[in-house]
């Protein structure tokens, strides 16, 4: 294998605390990503989204991001200028957020937003951009792309909005896609359609995908490799197919506390959090 697409070494994200000083929400996360599907799983507050945001450069104002290494295809992402960083974002690195209701612009037609993304990263005529946007909408299995092009975010369903979001993120043909809970706002059956689209695009274009989710079951069936995060740290890294052999008690506990169809367990096992996991 040549150089990894993304190398993250001892990534730390901290926010100013009310009492002064900083609170670390991501505490030394390290991993490398090739052209594969990597899942990051954890509960709310585990730092999984903050990890994703730090990689793209979308850490909220006031946040402090440090790392021994944060390299994206040979580029030291933390030392480049904000301008260079911005040209990466949406271009070679894209991010899909959880809820299309909030991540799409409410006062701009969906198609126009896709054109805007494309034109921000490539010199292309308005007309060609429009044609590409329609093709991108068709690629995410939207039946009537011409019609959807002209619609606003509130006029489409959640599933449709998320597809449009995926179309927008993929139009500049990124090499790395960070998907932060891309399907949790969707119904289960729609969830699978969206995942299938994502899966196909990843396979066809050879992108690297970081899939952030709280849903262990979904991640394990979709990704190749899984990082399990707890209190800002990676407590376990494991191949998705090996998840049932997870060694860390937190991973085991997370898997175990889910109710299952056809396996009645009353009461459900609960997670007994031990303070040493957070050390």
């Amino acid at each position: 294998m040549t150089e990894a697409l993304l190398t993250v070494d001892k990534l730390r994200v901290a926010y100013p605390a009310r009492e002064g000083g900083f609170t670390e929400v991501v505490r030394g996360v390290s991993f490398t990503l090739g052209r594969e599907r990597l899942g990051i799983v954890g509960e709310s507050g585990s730092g999984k989204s903050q990890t994703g945001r730090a990689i793209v450069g979308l850490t909220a104002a006031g946040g402090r991001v440090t790392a021994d290494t944060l390299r994206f295809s040979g580029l030291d992402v933390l030392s480049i200028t904000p301008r260079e960083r911005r040209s990466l974002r949406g271009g070679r690195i894209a991010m899909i957020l959880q809820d299309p209701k909030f991540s799409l612009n409410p006062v701009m037609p969906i198609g126009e937003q896709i054109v805007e993304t494309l034109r921000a990263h490539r010199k292309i005529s308005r007309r060609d951009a429009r044609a590409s946007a329609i093709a991108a909408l068709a690629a995410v299995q939207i039946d009537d792309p011409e019609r959807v092009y002209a619609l606003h975010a509130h006029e489409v369903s959640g599933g449709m909005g998320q597809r449009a979001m995926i179309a927008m993120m993929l139009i500049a043909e990124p090499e790395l896609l960070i998907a932060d809970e891309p399907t949790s706002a969707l119904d289960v059956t729609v969830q699978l359609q969206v995942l299938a689209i994502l899966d196909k695009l990843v396979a066809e274009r050879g992108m690297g995908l970081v899939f952030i989710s709280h849903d262990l079951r979904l991640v394990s069936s979709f990704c190749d490799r899984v990082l399990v995060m707890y209190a800002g740290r990676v407590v376990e890294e494991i191949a998705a197919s090996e998840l049932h052999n997870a060694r860390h008690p937190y991973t085991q506990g997370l898997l175990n506390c889910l109710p299952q169809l056809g396996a009645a367990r009353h009461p459900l096992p609960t997670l007994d959090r031990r303070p040493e996991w957070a050390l």
Partner: protein
Amino acid sequence: MSEATVMTVQKAGLSLQHLRVEFDRFVAVDDVSFEVAPGESFGIVGESGSGKSTVLRAICGLTPLAAGRVQLTGAAEPSLPGSKTFRRQVQMVFQDPYASLHPRQTVDRLLAEPLAIHGIDQGDEREARIERALDEVGLGQGFRFRYPHQLSGGQRQRIAIARALILEPQVLLLDEPTSALDASVQAEVLNLLETLRERRGLTFLMVSHDLAVVTHLCQRLVVMQRGRAVEFVGAEDLAAQRVAADYTRSLMQASAGFRRPEARPAADPTAAAS
């Protein structure tokens, strides 16, 4: 108030006949009928827009009925929505504990509200009920004067459950009570609901999009699609995949996780972990 002091300890059920709910010309619930026996735990499953939450809202009078009838059965005498008995016997727990608790009221005030509405907020009774409700949901008195923002999601949902229980109802309407919670917290809340049901002989009517969660608590369920009841199925039949409607089958497949089209079988770690 004489009515307030009479305690019905008898279990109550619900009877829904030809329920229809319309929003302008859109029919959200179309001819839905089912019975929930006293002490039973019954589930409603479906996707967003299927009308499952609207059924619950129609039962407790938050949404007007266009046609049909809701009745409380089993208890002393059958009572209708809007009557004082019905309003005391049937209580609801909402999906999002971040939205269902008033952000500027303390837990004490939140729990006292239903008591005030039903005229049982005088002196000792108020104190005793609030203390008991907090103990019952496993929070204890230390939480009594906190605000919702000082609580975690799971603690908030426990408060919402305590608020529903404080009138000592017989029927709880649960609208996705765990879908906003983390998996480990979901397990705790499901266990709490189950314990309370056993202890108080409660009747549950629970809405969820998660088949595994519904079958964990409910013996029987209805699958809804576009406002209609497409299939009634027992939890055991569902577990054994004995279902009739295609839609139910597609829901079951969806809940099993992602499957890549090329054969490569998706491992189901949850099955192996138990």
